[in-house]
């Protein structure tokens, strides 16, 4: 399996295999060359390899004449917010995000705090492949600067965005699992400032990840137990860098990561009808919620930059992805799990609600997510083959080919696409009935005929 992935979501790979210091240095040089120098912010999550990647990035950026500002370990959205405030030219977040600990990645941020879009990412790749990087002589090199106020700056923005006092009055008891990631310092502080009684686990930046950092129900078992034991009002789980948020109800039920955006959509559209932007693979529940509140849904290809740009372009109320990422424009145009926490706690405080009551208002769908790991050649060949057979016979479905293949029927849909972050095909099927969702996923899997596919249910 190819363990290096270069895509709209940045460059990511496994440290000790494909993600070498030379590769990182060259990508940093390419980014510095692409941005024609200027001020660049960098931050990292808590992976042990972060120190190595950080040095490689610093060296590559300085050599192309960039003024590097290192924020150290901090959530990626904190860096993105500070970046726009400082009028920096760009940023690099060093984080494998939701990927397991042995991965790491560079995620490239432009001056408006949004990740590079597909066109910009391909321009960056052209610079990388051409290998002709800007070389700056000794008397035009900038000194490395370090700042540690990114979290404070982020918190002060959040204070303006939410009704702080109302939340403080409720004195929530909140359980959190930071996965020993980049949120370990900020989240307990954030919640304490919100007057919460915080019960936190895995909040040490010195420790290894206790489980995979993707906040899916299977990775929230520890948090589920904590919520129950502490009788918390709600539980929150972070990925490694503060982009994705997972939720456990006060009853101890870990929610599918798809529900994070659905819940925040329910909250935000109930306050203010309007447009919600999400990607093709995100739950149909979003459409029903929007319909109920008289709002609309715009679907984009997968990738945060697509969603963020669309949110900005159409002035959407919010955006996000089924992976647990929520964009609230009043905070910033990027996945920000702190803004999502603020939105949820504010609603629960103002409406004297329990989170399970909020969940009851989300339409029920069954979603199946399957990851078919395979070689890149097999992946593209089989998707190509399926695409041509669909063009011949769409099986009565509505076809969307803007990112992979999405087939929708009145009672369900299935989306087949190659992952931006790993060498695998993602098959996502959703229907009101579990059996129908299963059937759709089974059909896709058998039609793909991946010889060396091994089933890898999440």
């Amino acid at each position, binding site marked *: 399996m190819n363990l290096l992935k270069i895509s709209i979501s940045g460059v990511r790979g496994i440290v*000790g295999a494909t993600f070498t210091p030379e590769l990182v240095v060259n990508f940093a*040089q390419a980014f510095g060359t692409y941005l024609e120098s200027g001020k660049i912010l960098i931050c990292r999550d808590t992976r042990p390899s972060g120190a*190595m*990647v*950080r040095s*490689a990035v610093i*060296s590559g950026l300085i*050599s192309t004449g960039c003024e590097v500002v290192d924020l150290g370990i901090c959530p990626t959205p904190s860096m993105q917010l500070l970046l726009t405030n400082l009028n920096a030219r760009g940023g690099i977040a060093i984080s494998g995000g939701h990927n397991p600990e042995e991965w790491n990645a560079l995620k490239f941020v432009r001056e408006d705090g949004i990740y590079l879009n597909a066109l910009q990412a391909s321009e960056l790749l052209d610079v990388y492949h051409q290998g002709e990087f800007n070389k700056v002589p*000794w008397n035009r090199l900038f000194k490395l600067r370090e700042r540690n106020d990114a979290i404070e700056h982020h918190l002060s923005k959040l204070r303006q965005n939410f009704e702080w006092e109302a939340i403080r009055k409720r004195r929530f008891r909140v359980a959190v699992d930071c996965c020993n990631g980049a949120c370990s310092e900020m989240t307990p502080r954030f919640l304490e400032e919100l007057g919460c009684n915080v019960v936190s686990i895995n909040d040490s930046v010195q420790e290894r990840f206790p489980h995979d950092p993707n906040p899916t129900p299977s990775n929230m078992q520890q948090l589920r137990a904590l919520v129950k034991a502490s009788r918390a009002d709600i539980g929150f789980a972070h990925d490694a860098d503060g982009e994705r948020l997972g939720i456990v109800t006060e009853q101890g039920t870990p929610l599918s990561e798809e529900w994070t955006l659905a819940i925040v959509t329910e909250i935000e559209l109930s306050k203010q009808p309007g447009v919600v932007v999400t990607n093709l693979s995100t739950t149909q529940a979003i459409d029903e919620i929007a319909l109920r509140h008289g709002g609309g849904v715009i679907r984009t290809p997968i990738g945060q930059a697509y969603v963020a740009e669309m949110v900005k372009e159409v002035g959407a109320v919010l955006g996000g992805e089924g992976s647990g990422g929520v964009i609230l424009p009043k905070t910033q145009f990027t996945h920000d799990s702190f803004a999502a926490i603020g939105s949820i706690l504010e609603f629960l405080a103002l409406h004297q609600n329990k989170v399970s009551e909020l969940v009851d208002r989300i339409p029920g769908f069954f979603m199946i997510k399957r990851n078919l790991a395979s070689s890149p050649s097999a992946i593209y060949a089989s998707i190509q083959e399926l695409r041509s057979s669909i063009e011949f016979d769409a099986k009565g479905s509505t076809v969307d080919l803007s990112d992979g293949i999405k087939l929708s029927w009145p009672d369900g849909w299935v989306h087949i696409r190659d992952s931006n972050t790993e060498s695998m095909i993602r098959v996502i099927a959703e229907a009101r009935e579990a059996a129908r969702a299963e059937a759709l996923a089974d059909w896709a899997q058998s039609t793909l005929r991946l010889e060396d596919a091994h089933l890898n249910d999440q």
Partner: protein
Amino acid sequence: MKPIRTLKISISGVRGVIGDSLSPTLLTRFAESFGTYLNSGKIVVGRDTRTSGEMVKHAVFAGLLATGCPVVDLDICPVPTIQLMVRKLGARGGIAITASHNPVEWNALKLIRSDGCFLNSYQAEELLSIYHQGDYRKARNHEIKAVKKNSQGIPSHLEQILKHYGPVLWKGRRLKVAIDCCNGAGSVMTPELLQALGCDVVSINTTPDGIFPHPPEPVPQNLTDLCQLVKESGADVGFAQDADADRLAIVSEKGTPIGEDNTLALAVKFLLRQEQGTVVTNLSTTQAIDDIAQVFNCRVIRTRIGEVNVTETMKKEKALIGGEGNGGVIFPRINFARDSMVGITLVLHYMALTASPLSTLVEELPRYYFVKHTLPCPSFRVRSFLNSLKEIYFREKLDLTDGLKILRPDSWAHIRSSNTEPIMRIVVEARNEETAQAWAREIIAMMHDE
């Protein structure tokens, strides 16, 4: 003028011009080779003050961390401090980020082994072989160690010197010492050392910002500011260092440079008059060393050019002192490295012991005249040049350790190819200038005929 080709990967490490040949990728690969070579052991890293030092340092960190090495970051400090700390911390090796006496746009990696010495030519060949094969050790995520900042370098180095030598009084008073640190790696430590030695310090160029006010090689033409400072301030002595503070040049109280060769001669004479011991130096260093050793009935051993050749011989022979004619003094009792701080300490104590002005101590040294020439010579012609010279001088006393050295009773000539450039170096020393010049002309003429 920009050199056409600036990159040099050799047994001396890797060297090049920033913004031209010395890219972060190359530096990272070199560090990966070194980390692989040292089996992921602890590595101490330090740098001189060059503006490119931070970029180079992080490229080095990335490479070392990727191979699983724990890294100790001394940041800006003299190269001899790095060498001392490698030993003190029990590290597997060290990397000094410095282009030493080269101009400001250059930078380089110098590679240090666990005993504080630089890699010898065999070890350097092994390292280069790893570099060229590109098969570096790849630490997995959880095997990657952290960089630890360590600010104990200069304090440890000072402590080590002061353990052996205390404050000096000259004829019952404090000495006034002028220094020029070239805004290099000695900028912080040198004033501290002099204060600890009880001297009054007048200094220029002690801002460690890497903006060199003059070329950092401590040769007489770069010492005019220091000479003036000595005269104006009435200092008893002036000291100048190169960018990484391994080499030392001295200016007498009269405001004249005493010549780089005399730095080692003074140190040797000071030590030998107190105790017996072997002296090691290279083939191109002044005959004065032999004359001094003879007076005290001590032995001199000559080695090939290159600091590591001197230090390895010193180790084997348990030498008392050694060094090179370029201002590099090695006194193993304090530090097994060329160390300008040690040179300063020994010279000041020599002045105190004899209660003599520095110019008098220099006048008492055996007097020789030095002529140095370089001739372009492609490497494939080196052998035939040397062979023809051997035929011409076959009746005389020859030393073939490193190129060709012809020894006469009161003079010598050394002809060898450079380790770093396609040139022949011709060094002639004699009792007077005319003899030295005449012999040098004779050799050059013969090489032109060849």
